[in-house]
Protein backbone atom coordinates (compact mmCIF):
# COMPACT_ATOMS: atom_id res chain seq x y z
CA UNK A 1 0.00 0.00 0.00
CA UNK A 2 0.95 3.64 -0.31
CA UNK A 3 2.38 4.93 2.95
CA UNK A 4 3.06 8.47 1.70
CA UNK A 5 0.39 9.54 -0.76
CA UNK A 6 1.89 12.98 -1.39
CA UNK A 7 5.08 11.50 -2.81
CA UNK A 8 3.71 8.08 -3.79
CA UNK A 9 5.99 6.03 -1.52
CA UNK A 10 4.88 2.44 -0.91
CA UNK A 11 5.58 0.18 2.06
CA UNK A 12 7.64 -2.06 -0.27
CA UNK A 13 9.92 0.84 -1.12
CA UNK A 14 10.41 1.55 2.58
CA UNK A 15 11.22 -2.12 3.32
CA UNK A 16 13.71 -2.04 0.43
CA UNK A 17 15.26 1.12 1.86
CA UNK A 18 15.52 -0.49 5.32
CA UNK A 19 17.27 -3.49 3.77
CA UNK A 20 19.70 -1.02 2.21
CA UNK A 21 20.49 0.50 5.59
CA UNK A 22 17.87 3.18 6.17
CA UNK A 23 16.89 3.23 9.82
CA UNK A 24 14.79 6.31 10.49
CA UNK A 25 11.97 8.45 9.14
CA UNK A 26 14.47 11.31 8.84
CA UNK A 27 16.56 9.29 6.40
CA UNK A 28 13.44 8.39 4.42
CA UNK A 29 12.65 12.10 4.24
CA UNK A 30 16.12 12.80 2.87
CA UNK A 31 15.85 10.00 0.32
CA UNK A 32 12.23 10.27 -0.86
CA UNK A 33 10.85 13.48 0.59
CA UNK A 34 8.47 11.32 2.64
CA UNK A 35 6.47 13.39 5.13
CA UNK A 36 7.56 16.71 3.62
CA UNK A 37 4.12 17.75 2.44
CA UNK A 38 1.28 16.88 4.82
CA UNK A 39 3.19 14.76 7.35
CA UNK A 40 0.32 12.35 8.00
CA UNK A 41 2.42 9.35 6.96
CA UNK A 42 5.32 9.63 9.43
CA UNK A 43 3.58 7.58 12.11
CA UNK A 44 2.86 4.73 9.73
CA UNK A 45 6.31 5.00 8.13
CA UNK A 46 7.88 4.50 11.56
CA UNK A 47 5.78 1.36 12.03
CA UNK A 48 6.85 -0.02 8.65
CA UNK A 49 10.53 0.67 9.45
CA UNK A 50 10.31 -1.07 12.83
CA UNK A 51 8.58 -4.09 11.35
CA UNK A 52 11.08 -4.34 8.49
CA UNK A 53 14.03 -4.05 10.88
CA UNK A 54 12.61 -6.81 13.10
CA UNK A 55 12.05 -9.04 10.07
CA UNK A 56 15.52 -8.44 8.64
CA UNK A 57 17.24 -9.08 11.98
CA UNK A 58 15.21 -12.28 12.42
CA UNK A 59 16.27 -13.38 8.94
CA UNK A 60 19.93 -12.62 9.65
CA UNK A 61 19.87 -14.58 12.91
CA UNK A 62 18.24 -17.60 11.33
CA UNK A 63 20.65 -17.66 8.38
CA UNK A 64 23.48 -18.55 10.72
CA UNK A 65 25.72 -15.63 9.78
CA UNK A 66 27.44 -13.82 12.62
CA UNK A 67 25.64 -10.67 13.69
CA UNK A 68 27.39 -7.50 12.61
CA UNK A 69 26.57 -4.21 14.26
CA UNK A 70 25.65 -1.51 11.74
CA UNK A 71 25.39 1.96 13.26
CA UNK A 72 21.88 3.12 12.54
CA UNK A 73 22.67 6.80 12.12
CA UNK A 74 25.02 6.43 9.15
CA UNK A 75 22.78 6.36 6.09
CA UNK A 76 25.62 6.00 3.60
CA UNK A 77 26.79 2.66 5.04
CA UNK A 78 24.84 -0.28 3.71
CA UNK A 79 24.86 -3.64 5.47
CA UNK A 80 26.09 -5.40 2.32
CA UNK A 81 29.38 -3.53 2.73
CA UNK A 82 30.16 -5.74 5.71
CA UNK A 83 29.34 -9.11 4.18
CA UNK A 84 32.43 -11.05 3.19
CA UNK A 85 32.79 -12.52 -0.31
CA UNK A 86 31.76 -16.17 -0.30
CA UNK A 87 34.54 -17.59 -2.56
Amino acid sequence: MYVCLCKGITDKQIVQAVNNGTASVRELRQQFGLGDQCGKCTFMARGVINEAMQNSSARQNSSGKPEIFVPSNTPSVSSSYFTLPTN
Partner: protein
Amino acid sequence: MRGNSTVLLALNKVLTRKLTTLNQFFLHARMHKNWGFSQLNNKVYQASIEEMKHADKIIERILLLDGLPNLQELGKLNIGEEPSEMLKLDDKLQTDDIRHIRDAIAVCEGEQDFVSRKMLADILAQQEEHQDWLDTQCSLIDTLGVENYLQQQL
Protein backbone atom coordinates in the same frame (compact mmCIF):
# COMPACT_ATOMS: atom_id res chain seq x y z
CA MET B 1 -30.43 25.45 19.35
CA ARG B 2 -27.43 25.24 21.67
CA GLY B 3 -25.95 21.74 21.55
CA ASN B 4 -23.97 19.85 24.13
CA SER B 5 -20.21 20.35 23.60
CA THR B 6 -19.42 16.67 24.23
CA VAL B 7 -21.93 15.66 21.56
CA LEU B 8 -20.54 18.26 19.14
CA LEU B 9 -17.03 16.91 19.66
CA ALA B 10 -18.21 13.34 19.05
CA LEU B 11 -20.09 14.41 15.89
CA ASN B 12 -17.04 16.24 14.56
CA LYS B 13 -14.91 13.14 15.16
CA VAL B 14 -17.35 11.03 13.15
CA LEU B 15 -17.37 13.74 10.45
CA THR B 16 -13.57 13.56 10.14
CA ARG B 17 -13.78 9.79 9.66
CA LYS B 18 -16.54 10.20 7.08
CA LEU B 19 -14.51 12.70 5.06
CA THR B 20 -11.48 10.39 5.20
CA THR B 21 -13.47 7.32 4.17
CA LEU B 22 -15.25 9.04 1.30
CA ASN B 23 -11.91 10.15 -0.13
CA GLN B 24 -10.38 6.69 0.21
CA PHE B 25 -13.40 4.99 -1.35
CA PHE B 26 -13.54 7.53 -4.16
CA LEU B 27 -9.89 7.10 -5.13
CA HIS B 28 -10.16 3.30 -4.86
CA ALA B 29 -13.30 3.30 -7.02
CA ARG B 30 -11.59 5.27 -9.76
CA MET B 31 -8.45 3.10 -9.53
CA HIS B 32 -10.67 0.04 -10.03
CA LYS B 33 -12.25 1.83 -13.01
CA ASN B 34 -8.86 2.72 -14.46
CA TRP B 35 -7.89 -0.98 -14.39
CA GLY B 36 -11.19 -1.99 -16.01
CA PHE B 37 -12.93 -3.50 -12.97
CA SER B 38 -16.20 -1.68 -13.57
CA GLN B 39 -18.24 -3.80 -11.12
CA LEU B 40 -15.91 -2.84 -8.29
CA ASN B 41 -15.91 0.77 -9.48
CA ASN B 42 -19.72 0.96 -9.36
CA LYS B 43 -20.01 -0.50 -5.90
CA VAL B 44 -17.17 1.42 -4.29
CA TYR B 45 -18.15 4.69 -6.01
CA GLN B 46 -21.68 4.30 -4.64
CA ALA B 47 -20.27 3.66 -1.15
CA SER B 48 -18.23 6.86 -1.45
CA ILE B 49 -21.36 8.85 -2.38
CA GLU B 50 -23.16 7.31 0.62
CA GLU B 51 -20.30 8.49 2.85
CA MET B 52 -20.73 11.99 1.40
CA LYS B 53 -24.44 11.91 2.23
CA HIS B 54 -23.65 10.80 5.77
CA ALA B 55 -21.15 13.65 6.07
CA ASP B 56 -23.85 16.04 4.85
CA LYS B 57 -26.28 14.86 7.52
CA ILE B 58 -23.65 15.26 10.24
CA ILE B 59 -22.67 18.74 8.97
CA GLU B 60 -26.30 19.88 9.06
CA ARG B 61 -26.80 18.42 12.52
CA ILE B 62 -23.69 20.15 13.88
CA LEU B 63 -24.86 23.47 12.42
CA LEU B 64 -28.31 22.99 13.93
CA LEU B 65 -26.64 22.45 17.31
CA ASP B 66 -24.78 25.78 16.83
CA GLY B 67 -21.45 24.04 16.39
CA LEU B 68 -18.82 24.44 13.70
CA PRO B 69 -18.37 21.41 11.44
CA ASN B 70 -14.66 20.85 10.88
CA LEU B 71 -14.21 20.03 7.21
CA GLN B 72 -10.50 20.79 7.30
CA GLU B 73 -9.44 17.80 9.36
CA LEU B 74 -8.72 14.68 7.34
CA GLY B 75 -7.26 11.39 8.52
CA LYS B 76 -4.62 9.25 6.84
CA LEU B 77 -5.78 7.60 3.60
CA ASN B 78 -4.82 3.95 3.22
CA ILE B 79 -4.51 3.48 -0.53
CA GLY B 80 -3.71 0.01 -1.84
CA GLU B 81 -1.64 -0.88 -4.87
CA GLU B 82 -3.82 -3.68 -6.25
CA PRO B 83 -7.54 -4.55 -6.05
CA SER B 84 -7.46 -7.21 -3.32
CA GLU B 85 -5.26 -5.05 -1.09
CA MET B 86 -7.57 -2.07 -1.69
CA LEU B 87 -10.62 -4.10 -0.61
CA LYS B 88 -8.84 -5.29 2.52
CA LEU B 89 -7.83 -1.74 3.44
CA ASP B 90 -11.42 -0.54 2.83
CA ASP B 91 -12.69 -3.34 5.06
CA LYS B 92 -10.31 -2.35 7.84
CA LEU B 93 -11.28 1.32 7.57
CA GLN B 94 -14.98 0.49 7.60
CA THR B 95 -14.54 -1.66 10.70
CA ASP B 96 -12.77 1.20 12.49
CA ASP B 97 -15.50 3.64 11.36
CA ILE B 98 -18.20 1.40 12.80
CA ARG B 99 -16.40 1.24 16.13
CA HIS B 100 -16.15 5.04 16.25
CA ILE B 101 -19.80 5.52 15.33
CA ARG B 102 -20.80 3.13 18.13
CA ASP B 103 -18.71 5.19 20.57
CA ALA B 104 -20.38 8.39 19.34
CA ILE B 105 -23.82 6.80 19.75
CA ALA B 106 -22.95 5.98 23.35
CA VAL B 107 -21.93 9.62 23.93
CA CYS B 108 -25.24 10.90 22.46
CA GLU B 109 -27.16 8.44 24.61
CA GLY B 110 -25.28 9.56 27.71
CA GLU B 111 -25.98 13.25 26.96
CA GLN B 112 -29.62 12.47 26.08
CA ASP B 113 -29.28 13.81 22.52
CA PHE B 114 -31.66 11.24 21.06
CA VAL B 115 -31.99 12.90 17.66
CA SER B 116 -28.22 12.78 17.02
CA ARG B 117 -28.28 9.25 18.37
CA LYS B 118 -30.94 8.21 15.86
CA MET B 119 -29.08 9.88 12.98
CA LEU B 120 -25.90 7.98 13.87
CA ALA B 121 -27.82 4.73 14.34
CA ASP B 122 -29.26 5.09 10.81
CA ILE B 123 -25.76 5.76 9.45
CA LEU B 124 -24.46 2.75 11.39
CA ALA B 125 -27.01 0.45 9.77
CA GLN B 126 -25.77 1.44 6.28
CA GLN B 127 -22.16 1.09 7.40
CA GLU B 128 -22.75 -2.45 8.59
CA GLU B 129 -24.31 -3.30 5.24
CA HIS B 130 -21.27 -2.09 3.33
CA GLN B 131 -18.94 -3.80 5.77
CA ASP B 132 -20.79 -7.05 5.11
CA TRP B 133 -20.25 -6.56 1.37
CA LEU B 134 -16.54 -5.91 1.95
CA ASP B 135 -16.24 -9.00 4.18
CA THR B 136 -17.89 -11.07 1.48
CA GLN B 137 -15.46 -9.79 -1.17
CA CYS B 138 -12.45 -10.57 1.03
CA SER B 139 -13.67 -14.12 1.70
CA LEU B 140 -14.49 -14.58 -2.02
CA ILE B 141 -10.90 -13.63 -2.86
CA ASP B 142 -9.71 -16.27 -0.37
CA THR B 143 -11.97 -19.03 -1.70
CA LEU B 144 -11.86 -18.29 -5.47
CA GLY B 145 -8.34 -16.93 -5.70
CA VAL B 146 -7.73 -13.34 -6.71
CA GLU B 147 -7.62 -14.00 -10.50
CA ASN B 148 -10.98 -15.80 -10.56
CA TYR B 149 -12.51 -13.16 -8.34
CA LEU B 150 -11.31 -10.27 -10.49
CA GLN B 151 -12.55 -11.95 -13.66
CA GLN B 152 -16.07 -11.49 -12.34
CA GLN B 153 -15.52 -7.80 -11.65
CA LEU B 154 -14.95 -6.70 -15.25
